[in-house]
């Protein structure tokens, strides 16, 4: 079977769930090789990658790979594409993953598909465009298919691979070192999962009413092990930080379960969450368009309904 490169997303030495999804997906189309960019790989991380099917693990431990914006990772992948001639390269369709894919496409003169929600034979990708209104199948015509796959598109399943490690040295070009990261500022997030890759997202909107009241949303999220999202109305009002905004000008999420509390469901919001597998809406306005999408809707005051739901979730666990 042909080799497929999977760029590993990792934070503090830990492999992110989306990478396990990509390895699982890659196994259906070829033999996955994980690519670890930068220092910090641990025995646990290697074991995890092998557990989900990585036959090889390419490790490029040079520190400067992570000191600059995006370009070094694209350069590393381009070098591997030239050396290993893989049949495809998969990255996570996160903001950075898509940028890496874009630069890699230019470098290798290859087609790129972003935001795939599925990938089949011949690397034909499924996409959901226009806020979920149209389903598209597309494929790359030139070069090595580069596909950015949306988190939560595949259920990760273990199937052991050899996990043979190969160290890669990469000499970065001056151009790749043009935008230096001088400081990383981590903002409060606690133990919640990443918004774009969470299996469950609980979002609050205008109906939440204040920044303080977002604690109601957070408590439900924590009971469910979910990420917290917010509508633009809520982030514009300053009730919740902008990076948690779901919608057209914010993040796109595709979780298994999306709970929208106090969100009317304007088209701009729907564009960011419409591909969720199951949608639950809580809103006191029975005419709110979010109910058209919801698998289950409660017409009522979220300040009553959400805490009660949180209690029930805790009870049943």
């Amino acid at each position, binding site marked *: 079977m042909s080799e497929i490169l999977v760029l590993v997303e990792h934070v503090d030495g830990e492999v992110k769930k989306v990478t396990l999804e990509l390895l699982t997906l890659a196994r259906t189309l070829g033999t996955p090789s994980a690519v670890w960019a930068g220092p910090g790989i641990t025995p646990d991380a290697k074991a995890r990658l092998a557990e989900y099917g990585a036959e090889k693990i390419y490790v490029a431990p040079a520190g400067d790979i992570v000191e600059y914006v995006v370009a070094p990772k694209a350069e590393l992948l381009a070098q591997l594409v030239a050396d290993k001639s893989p049949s495809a390269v998969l990255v996570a369709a996160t*903001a950075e993953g898509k940028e890496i894919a874009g630069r890699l496409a230019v470098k290798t003169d290859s087609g790129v598909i972003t935001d795939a929600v599925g990938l089949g034979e011949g690397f034909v990708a499924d996409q959901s465009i226009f806020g979920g209104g149209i389903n*598209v199948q597309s494929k790359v*015509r030139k070069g090595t298919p580069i596909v950015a796959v949306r988190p939560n598109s595949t259920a990760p399943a273990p199937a052991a691979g050899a996990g043979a490690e190969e160290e890669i040295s990469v000499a970065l070009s001056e151009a790749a070192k043009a935008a230096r990261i*001088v400081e990383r500022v981590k903002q409060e997030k606690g133990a919640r999962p990443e918004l774009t890759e969470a299996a469950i997202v609980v979002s609050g909107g205008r109906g939440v009413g204040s920044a303080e009241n977002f604690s109601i949303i957070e408590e439900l999220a924590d009971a469910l092990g979910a990420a917290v999202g917010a509508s633009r109305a809520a982030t514009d009002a300053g009730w919740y930080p902008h990076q948690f905004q779901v919608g057209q*000008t914010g993040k796109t999420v595709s979780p298994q379960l999306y709970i929208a509390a106090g969100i009317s469901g304007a088209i701009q919001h729907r*564009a960011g969450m419409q591909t969720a597998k199951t949608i639950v809406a809580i809103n006191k306005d029975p005419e709110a368009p979010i109910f*058209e999408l919801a698998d289950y*809707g409660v017409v009522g*005051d979220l300040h009553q309904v959400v805490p009660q739901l949180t209690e029930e979730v805790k009870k049943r*666990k």
Partner: protein
Amino acid sequence: MNIVVCVKQVPDTATERKLRSDDKTLDRDAADGVVNELDEYAVEEALKLKEAHGGEVTVLTMGPGKATETIRKALAMGADKAVHLTDEALHGSDALSTSYAMAQVLKKIGFDLVVLGSESTDARTGVLAAMLAERLGTPQLTLANKVDIEGSSIRIQRLTDYGFDKVEATLPAVVSVVEKINEPRYPSFKGIMAAKKKPVETLAIGDASIDAAQVGLAAAWSEVVDFAAAPPRAAGTVVKDEGDGGEKAAEFLASKKFI
């Protein structure tokens, strides 16, 4: 400082958006064209940087004749002049060919700073700024929610999942902005009137040394094989809260094995 701000005309999200059945490209006639929302933030940021540091703001757009509406809006907001790359040969260009064509124009017109929205509301690929930086060999300062320039050095805050990165580079550079960065101004009546007199240069591909074999539908690096309207979501259950709305919702979640 010579600032070029890239804007795109996109179909209005509030209207029905379609693909053409013949060549599977965006149906531009089906919906009203509007300025890509995130590009308005790019225009605003370009204008602010000009106000702080002097220089000139040029609007660059690629698209059919109708895209002049987009240019007019940016000029009415306060941009100084515009370049409109328009050619039938560009129809159906994907992100790779679009970035190639725009990079060719940027090389021709020159720039200290290129500013664009972090993605378009139609294709939402989010790759154009990164591709332009790659093609132009300039620093990539993308997903910025804050931009500061001092002399020839530029610093941004790059939005990340965990907060933000402080990033620095030297001009010339490519910057993409997120919506958080500013509040775009509304064009004033005076601005709208003044925009009518501002110069708009129209370029065909030959005017910017763009190779016809690298652009358009036939040259695209990827293709849409098939498409169909997404099946409508089946109508769900909606209950009225009678004091047990949370419990009922919990029952639903339990029935779906979420709890």
